[in-house]
């Protein structure tokens, strides 16, 4: 069944079966129904927004992530200093 076959059959089924009383009832209640629908949409929207915020918190931007990764591999100034100090101590020991 094509998209419009399905949409039209549902649409026609509702339109063709509504009585005048149904129309009047719908007309009287449509604003309340709209408020209910708005609440549902707002709740769905908040859930989606929260999931976007959570994903953003979990994922660092790619360039920052790359930088942090290299920070672990490359010697930091403190590590470099510590390495040079050890190297000098080793040379002094060798020369004694």
């Amino acid at each position, binding site marked *: 069944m094509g998209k419009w076959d399905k949409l039209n059959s549902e649409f026609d089924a509702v339109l063709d079966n509504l009585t005048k009383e149904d129309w009047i009832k719908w007309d009287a209640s*449509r604003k309340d129904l709209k408020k209910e629908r708005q609440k549902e949409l707002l709740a769905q929207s908040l859930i989606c927004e929260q999931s*976007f915020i959570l994903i953003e918190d979990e994922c660092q931007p790619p360039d920052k992530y790359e930088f942090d990764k290299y920070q672990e591999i490359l010697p930091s100034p403190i590590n470099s200093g510590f390495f040079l100090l050890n190297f000098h101590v080793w040379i002094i020991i060798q020369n004694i």
Partner: protein
Amino acid sequence: MRLTNLKVFHTQSYTIPALNFPKLATGYEQWLGDGFYFWQDEYFAKWWGESKKSNPINPRYTIYLAYLEFDSDDFIDTVFNEEDYYQFCNNIEKFARKCQENLGRKPSLPEFNEFLDAYKLWDNICVIRFQDLPESSQHLEVEGFYYKKRIQIRVKNPKIITKFVLHKNLARV
């Protein structure tokens, strides 16, 4: 299932922090009821920012970029799909005739949307693409020739918004 992807624009007033998610539009002004509204073209996203989302006191506005991903069967494209356009018109007119018969008056735009919602019609349709015409020749390169479509996209189901990012912070000219 055939997936459709759309890259669209959402304009809002400038805020700190920037939005994480598009703003839900509610009320009676929207042409297809409550939902998330996007512009197909950046040009009109900018125009919307200039004309509705900024003012001389708060001149800044923001254009966001959003990516939508959804099943093609859940999409009514009244702009580029001929069948969708004619079926869409037929349904609106069918509803209008029944409303006239039973309530004795022409329905309004909000009533059409409320009817769809009340009877859960087109419930699976998460995206509708719709157009009107630019309001003035200001947007046209040829005077008085309305060759350009002002295209908007209404999203009902926020789950199909897969990405939403700040595109540009701008100030009205």
